[in-house]
């Protein structure tokens, strides 16, 4: 009986273990086959981290190697409010807020409110200055930590801001070089897949797949920091003195179109873009247009000389005005000059004379030369947000437009367009594409930008004649205030009315400008100064010329340009 019971029990036991073994085997087989991928994935997720390796944004330097913009990792302060307790579990949020507030320049209540917002994790302040981060790190505060974040820094403050642009919080370049060369500067992010231990350290024997990041290219600009600084200093001073609404200055190398400096007022500090006025973000040298006024007369005369319509000694009888298209166009203050040569038209800035020259040239040729000089189209400078200006199609010209456009009204230009046109006059007749990036350095080495001649606009002979006429304008004419001791200067003033929304002109407000180059022979720089609504009104060209002088004096001294006059 006992043996029988024993055998039965044994059989049950055997059957039980057999079934359990089969079930376990089946389960094991399941996890080893069907469920393997899921298990592997879950196990992998626990130890593997898949990170995007950020590429280092390229450095921007001036033509002499001075750093204009670079990126560095700064510490961002984050908080985990749930961990802000002492050893006994008492709430430490008020103490943490009180300790941080004076360092961050924030009120404790604001920090306390952030800690009590219910967020499990929050940034207290991003991209802290290093000294601030060091002070906070030294405090024994619970629930705080640092995370590295890249920050674009501009060591020269607002100097060059309009050329450089800025980088927003998402790391995307905006405006200027940062915007135009966003792709080249930003590089390509890499990827790093590694196994990590519970302390978040890489396991040496674990999985490691790395695709290295490709850092952004470094750019060297044609901008000269010293000249840029002088230009911005003088622009800020004249805008303040003249209580002007704004202004712009462009300095070009006429030999190849390299931009030496660009300034625009109002401007901004790239480190405080968030608080900048929208108007301050606009680079008036390329994104703003104005009627150039008399600075266009050399263009009209260059076209007529090049076409053979007039010579420097061609004369006409000035009666103080010209009638064209049934409209009477006067000289400034309707002054009568009598017999006048073409050279004198420039030296005295006679509107009637410009109309005379334009009439000799004809609308079709004037329109063609305006386009040849690059007006009404982008210069293709390598900066973002350039505008075209307006030169209406010939078919839309009224007869009077030939007259008004001859002295710079009825069309609009950018300061940069005017500078490139004057550069063509200065360099013997070639229109260069202005450029800001002199070279780009990537893993393959340095790639230099070759100057680009867009077209020949006027002959060398016409250019030489214009240079002489413009030099006379400065030496003995209306632009005498721009003359420099020791250097020959060629240039022309401009005073233009400002169009209003209703199609007429704004009363008693003007745009004053001066465009010139120095030395007149073998010129080193073209400078265009434009002031919007200076308080000197019709005499606004004088502060514009003074600004030109100050910039030219500084730049020539800095560049050690030998005087060409005793």
């Amino acid at each position, binding site marked *: 009986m006992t043996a029988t019971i024993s055998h039965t029990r044994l059989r049950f036991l055997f059957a039980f273990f057999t079934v359990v073994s089969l079930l376990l085997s089946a389960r094991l087989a399941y996890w080893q086959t069907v469920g393997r991928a899921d298990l592997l994935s879950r196990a992998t997720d626990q130890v593997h981290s898949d990170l995007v390796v950020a590429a280092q944004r390229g450095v921007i330097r001036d033509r002499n190697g*001075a*750093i204009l913009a*670079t990126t*560095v*990792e700064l510490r961002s302060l984050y908080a985990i409010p749930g961990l802000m307790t002492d050893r006994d579990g008492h709430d430490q949020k008020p103490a943490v807020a009180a300790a941080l507030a004076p360092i961050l320049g924030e009120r404790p209540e604001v920090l306390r409110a952030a800690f009590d917002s219910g967020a499990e994790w929050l940034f207290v302040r991003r991209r802290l200055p*290093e000294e601030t981060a060091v002070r906070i790190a030294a405090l024994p505060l619970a629930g705080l930590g640092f995370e590295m974040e890249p920050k674009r*820094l501009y*060591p*020269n*403050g607002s*100097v060059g801001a309009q050329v450089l642009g800025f980088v927003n919080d998402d790391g995307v370049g905006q405006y200027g070089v940062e915007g135009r060369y966003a792709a080249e500067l930003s590089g390509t992010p890499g990827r790093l897949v590694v196994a990590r231990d519970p302390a978040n*350290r*890489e*396991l*040496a*024997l674990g999985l490691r797949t790395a695709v290295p990041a490709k850092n952004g290219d470094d750019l060297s600009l044609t901008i000269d*920091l*010293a000249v840029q*600084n*002088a230009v*911005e*200093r003088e622009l800020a001073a004249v805008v303040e003195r003249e209580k002007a609404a704004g202004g712009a200055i462009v300095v070009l190398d006429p030999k190849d179109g390299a931009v030496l400096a660009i300034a625009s007022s109002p401007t901004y500090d790239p480190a405080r873009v968030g608080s900048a006025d929208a108007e301050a973000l606009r680079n008036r040298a390329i994104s703003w247009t104005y009627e150039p006024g008399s600075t266009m007369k050399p263009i009209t005369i260059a076209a007529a000389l090049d076409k053979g319509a007039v010579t420097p000694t061609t004369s006409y009888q000035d009666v103080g005005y010209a009638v064209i298209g049934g409209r009477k166009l006067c000289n400034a203050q309707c002054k009568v000059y009598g017999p006048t040569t073409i050279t004198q038209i420039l030296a005295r800035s006679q509107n009637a004379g410009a109309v005379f020259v334009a009439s000799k040239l004809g609308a079709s040729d004037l329109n063609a030369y305006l386009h040849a000089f690059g007006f009404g189209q982008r210069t293709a400078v390598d900066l973002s947000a350039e505008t075209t200006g307006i030169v209406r199609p010939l078919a839309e010209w009224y007869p009077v437009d030939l007259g008004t456009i001859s002295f710079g009204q009825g069309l609009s230009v950018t300061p940069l367009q005017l500078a490139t046109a004057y550069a063509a006059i200065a360099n013997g007749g070639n229109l260069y594409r202005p450029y800001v990036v002199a070279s780009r350095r990537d893993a393959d080495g340095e790639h230099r930008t070759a100057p680009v001649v867009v077209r020949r606009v006027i002959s060398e002979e016409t250019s030489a004649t214009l240079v002489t006429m413009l030099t006379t304008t400065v030496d003995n004419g209306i632009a005498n205030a721009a003359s420099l*001791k*020791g250097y020959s200067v060629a240039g022309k003033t401009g005073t233009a009315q400002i169009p209003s929304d209703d199609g007429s002109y704004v009363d008693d407000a003007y745009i004053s400008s001066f465009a010139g180059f120095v030395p007149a022979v073998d010129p080193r720089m073209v400078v265009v100064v434009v002031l919007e609504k200076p308080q000197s009104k019709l005499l606004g060209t004088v502060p514009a010329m003074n600004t030109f002088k100050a910039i030219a004096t500084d730049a020539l*001294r800095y560049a050690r340009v*030998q*005087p060409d006059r005793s």
Partner: protein
Amino acid sequence: MTFAQAVRAPQARRVPHRLHREAVAHHRGASRHAATRIRTSSWEIRSFLLASGVIVACFLVVLLYLAQATAVSAASYEAQRLAAQRDELRRQNALLVIESARLDSPARVETEAQRLGLVRAATIRVVVTEAAAATR
């Protein structure tokens, strides 16, 4: 057979070995049986030693592997620590370079010069090299 028995066995069998030589003359059958036993014992010892050797060798290999793996891990952690230190030093260097650029900024130099009471030179005398050479 225990390890102690196995170690003792060869010595323990020397006396029977001598007895065996004496008995050869008298009992050839017994001697054949004894020889078989000796061969069997010898094989067991060798097998045991071989197995023990393999086990010890495996143990040493595993120990070596673990030692190497531990050393690699430790070196890896050290490399990570050094890499982090290098990155931090590079970051500090970058901050210093920026600070240097800020201090070299013409705008800052001008402001500092004004603060020190320096003024811009009104005129600068220039010696034209060609003219100077012609007078010699």
